[in-house]
């Protein structure tokens, strides 16, 4: 099938960078060993100095955004981080972590297992980027009009929807609480109007939508939103996985054969 020797393998000799580069972190070499750093700088700030003077949420924001947040920004980010800190024991990501724990999986694997499922497109980070793009685009449109158009056409509304057949009250409460803060921005406020317009249909904020709105208002990129959702939910996922790690496998349900049905 190969004519003209097109399939004779030849390197393209592409030019690759000689060094990896980063704008995030500088590790300053020690005097006598170029592999050992004696100081680290994050976006210009000495890590030892920010350790002493700034909160975890401040440095978390700095790491991804390149600048320290204002007090209003860090307040809303920290409250979002707490809102997302535990997807709860019924979320599939948590259940996967608990399966790993009860199954005596190496504890080092509990986090990646849970985080992978927390990246799903349903109730996970996998929809946060789309929701962030949606919220950015929609801010010039009337929320009630947009809600009516989506309901009329039955098109999905990224970040909003029905949860087990109805409104996710916790997500809506979190959004409302965050919207009261001085750091709340246009996306979150627009989303509040959207959720009110959808309410009677049993549709409202979903947790990834709340995260998308706040992260969008804080200036994070949509792609980062996917990962940040996984990061922010990881503590709860791991906590539940570890909680069952010392228990016997009988400590969690195992579906009886009589309740197992094969439909073909």
């Amino acid at each position, binding site marked *: 099938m190969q004519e003209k020797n097109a399939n004779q393998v030849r390197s393209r000799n592409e030019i690759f960078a000689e060094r990896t580069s980063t704008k995030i972190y500088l590790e300053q070499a020690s005097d006598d060993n170029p592999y*050992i750093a004696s100081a680290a700088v994050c976006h210009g700030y000495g890590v030892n100095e920010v350790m002493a003077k700034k909160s975890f949420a401040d440095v978390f924001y700095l790491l991804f955004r390149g600048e320290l947040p204002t007090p209003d920004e860090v307040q809303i980010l920290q409250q979002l981080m707490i809102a997302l800190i535990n997807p709860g024991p019924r979320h599939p990501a948590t259940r996967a972590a608990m399966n790993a724990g009860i199954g005596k999986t190496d504890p080092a694997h509990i986090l990646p297992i849970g985080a992978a499922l927390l990246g799903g497109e349903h109730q996970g980070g996998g929809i946060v980027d789309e929701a962030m793009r949606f919220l950015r685009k929609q801010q010039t449109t009337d929320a009630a009009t947009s809600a009516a158009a989506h309901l009329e056409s039955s098109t999905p509304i990224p970040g909003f929807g029905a949860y087990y057949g*109805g409104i996710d009250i916790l997500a809506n409460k979190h959004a409302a609480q965050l919207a009261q803060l001085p750091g709340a921005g246009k996306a979150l406020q627009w989303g509040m109007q959207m959720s009110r317009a959808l309410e009677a249909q049993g549709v409202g904020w979903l947790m990834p939508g709340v995260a998308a709105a706040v992260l969008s208002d804080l200036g994070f990129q949509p792609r980062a939103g996917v990962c940040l959702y996984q990061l922010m939910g990881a503590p709860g996922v791991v906590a539940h996985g570890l909680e069952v790690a010392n228990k016997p496998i009988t400590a969690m349900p195992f579906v009886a054969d009589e309740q197992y049905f094969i439909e073909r």
Partner: protein
Amino acid sequence: MPEKTFSDQQIIDSLNARRGKIISKTGGWFPGKGVFSHGYSMMDDLVGKKSYFQIVILNATGKMASAEFAHWVEVGYSCLSWPDPRIWCNQIGALAGGVRTSAIAATAMGVLATDSRTYGVYPLKEGVQFIQAALVNHQQGLSAEQIVASVPSRGGKPLIVGYIRPIAKGDERIRAMASIAEGYGFPMGPHLALAMAIERVLQEKYDEGMNVNGYVSAVMADHGFSPDEVYQIFTTLVASGVTACYLDTYHQPLDSFLPLRCDDIEYQGTAKRAVPTAE
């Protein structure tokens, strides 16, 4: 703020009906009775009677492939099991060996990396989508040349998933897989015939050819598999090569895989500054 959920009672009822039950359309294990998969009794019909790759295809698609076709798929896995840690997924394995993770963690994370828009397994979906759509267009009258002309281009060359291999020109894996297909007498299907016609256009105009994705996508399409089914069949395509790269570094001294000095990373960020005092 709503305290009422305005829920759909039918959804609540349907969820209640499934609590504590597993309803599978695939199979399951019933101790003392057997293990069932897609209508087969695994221990009676499959284990020892069908190859591992026939079972892989069955689990990925619900379809029982011939032993010959399953072997051809296995050869595809072999072709992607290279122990070269410069390949991105394999380098994850090599780095994992350097920090002494478990072999399973290293291999699983390398496999995860191939869910990539640019290489690995995910592009097979787009490869099959392309050749299926191209065949429809071809059957409606478009020539291979017109199909190539209709796709977007980058760097003056047409951008088609499955053609124009990154890093190197040409693809020795096609020959290896094609020789197995020829040995088994697989007939030339319309997707592969069109893929080869497209390759001829690329060869003549751009000195470029098909890559293994394009070949596999065309053959899989000729065998009636959908883009999703192809992706599902090849989910762990690179696993063995990642394991090999993991073990290579696992057995070498700590920190010795591509060691980086501090100044091997070029810092392009903000210059050193003091943390501002609270206002």
